[in-house]
């Protein structure tokens, strides 16, 4: 068997040179698509994601309408060219699951009872995937919703934490490190991944998934770290939104 990759060195430095509690570089731009009500382009490390919001508009088919509130339909889709090996296009088990959890997370923050019988559609297109695309998608969707002027209680934000390096070069078990925002290698060869989404105003958790094993102490530590990451990204989201409207004005 091939020798395992050492994901984190003894100084606590990771493969891409980050420290345990460091995020990848994030760039957010609001209002990039002209025909959508609101949109956002987000780069998170090597993840490239576009989110577009359409609506509120009358929900079709009619039986999907809710007479009391709007329904939120998020669609997460990975482009065929987004990964190394061509991905067979179209919805699959994984993307349907992600669409569902993102829809539910967004529904929690949007004030849906203002638009009975309507649908708010959020399309999240992953152009380039590296790891943590669901967090990137949800973060972009939050900015796109705010850009669309949809009334909401908060801008949702997502981030992941995980555990890496629990085996040494000889496959022997050692402690392992809890780190923020897993990269591609860390996601593939790491021990656990914990993506969460929160409502940063009150710290409410909108989404929480876990892949792998963590002890209770490790889980608590990872959750705290991920929330810390979310709060950093939340500031970037707001900056991007404010910047868009400032630029709109300064063009004249």
């Amino acid at each position: 068997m091939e020798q395992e990759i050492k994901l984190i060195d003894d100084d606590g430095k990771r493969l891409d040179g980050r420290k345990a509690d460091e995020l990848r570089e994030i760039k957010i731009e609001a209002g990039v698509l002209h025909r959508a009500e609101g949109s956002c382009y987000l780069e998170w490390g090597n993840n490239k994601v576009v989110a577009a919001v359409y609506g509120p508009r009358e929900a079709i088919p009619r039986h999907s309408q809710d007479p009391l509130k709007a329904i939120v339909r998020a669609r997460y889709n990975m482009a065929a060219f987004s990964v190394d090996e061509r991905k067979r296009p179209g919805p699959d088990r994984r993307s349907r699951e992600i669409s569902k959890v993102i829809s539910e997370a967004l529904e929690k923050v949007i004030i849906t009872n203002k638009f009975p019988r309507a649908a708010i559609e959020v399309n999240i297109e992953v152009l380039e995937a590296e790891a943590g695309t669901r967090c990137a998608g949800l973060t972009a969707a939050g900015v796109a919703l705010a850009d669309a002027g949809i009334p909401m209680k908060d801008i949702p934000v997502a981030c992941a934490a995980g555990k890496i390096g629990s085996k040494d070069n000889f496959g022997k078990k050692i402690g392992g490190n809890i780190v923020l925002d897993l990269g591609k290698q860390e996601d593939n060869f790491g021990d656990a991944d914990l993506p969460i989404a929160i409502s940063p105003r009150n710290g409410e958790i909108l989404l929480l998934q876990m892949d792998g094993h963590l002890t209770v102490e490790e889980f608590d530590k990872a959750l705290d770290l991920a929330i810390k990451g979310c709060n950093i990204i939340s500031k970037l989201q707001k900056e991007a939104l404010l910047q868009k409207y400032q630029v709109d004005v300064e063009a004249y």
Partner: protein
Amino acid sequence: MSREKREIVTPSQLLGDTNSSKAGRGTFIEKGKIYSERMGLLNKISDFINVIPLKGRYEPIEKDFVIGIIEEPLSSSWLVDINAPYPALLHTNEVPWDVEFGETDKYLNRGDSIMAKILDVGIEKNIQITLKDQKDHNLYKISGGYITNIEPSKVPRLIGKEGSMITLLKKYTKCRIHVGKNGRIWIKGENEKISKVLQVIKKIETESIYYGLTDRIEGLLKKDANEVQ
């Protein structure tokens, strides 16, 4: 000229608490604190905190004047697109003509534009509009001219205080201009004048967050009027 800017707020931004002020439009209250619910401009009037939306769909309100486009003639009514999340219903009882059952398409057909008034907005947001109003003679089918769209949230800015901006625009361009609350604008006049109006509307839309806009627009229109002479 004052180029002072108003404060832009993001959703969930803390604006105040319920002890010292009251929550107005575009805000919500949680645990005694007032937060913004959308992207918008902060507007404080006496002790009310309002957020004026920068973007967003038109929310129909009774008695609003709107410009609609017929989507579909039904046997005794029409479905009209008024830029709201839902199509509006125009019943044959609400038009000035005597329409036979099943002959709605002889009067208004798909793609026709009308200037209408919102009659009623139901609890499930069923919208009804009317072309009949004793006091208002401005409700009819549109023929000719040009229709353009702006953000519905910027309509009050285009109209100005007590109509100051829109009268200015009408005075200098000699066009007929009707502004629907849903962000649709109908302009009729000479072609060059129409393009002038469109240009000014664009400017108003992009600069709407500055104070003292009316004065600057007047300056612009005056300058152009001089050039023509």
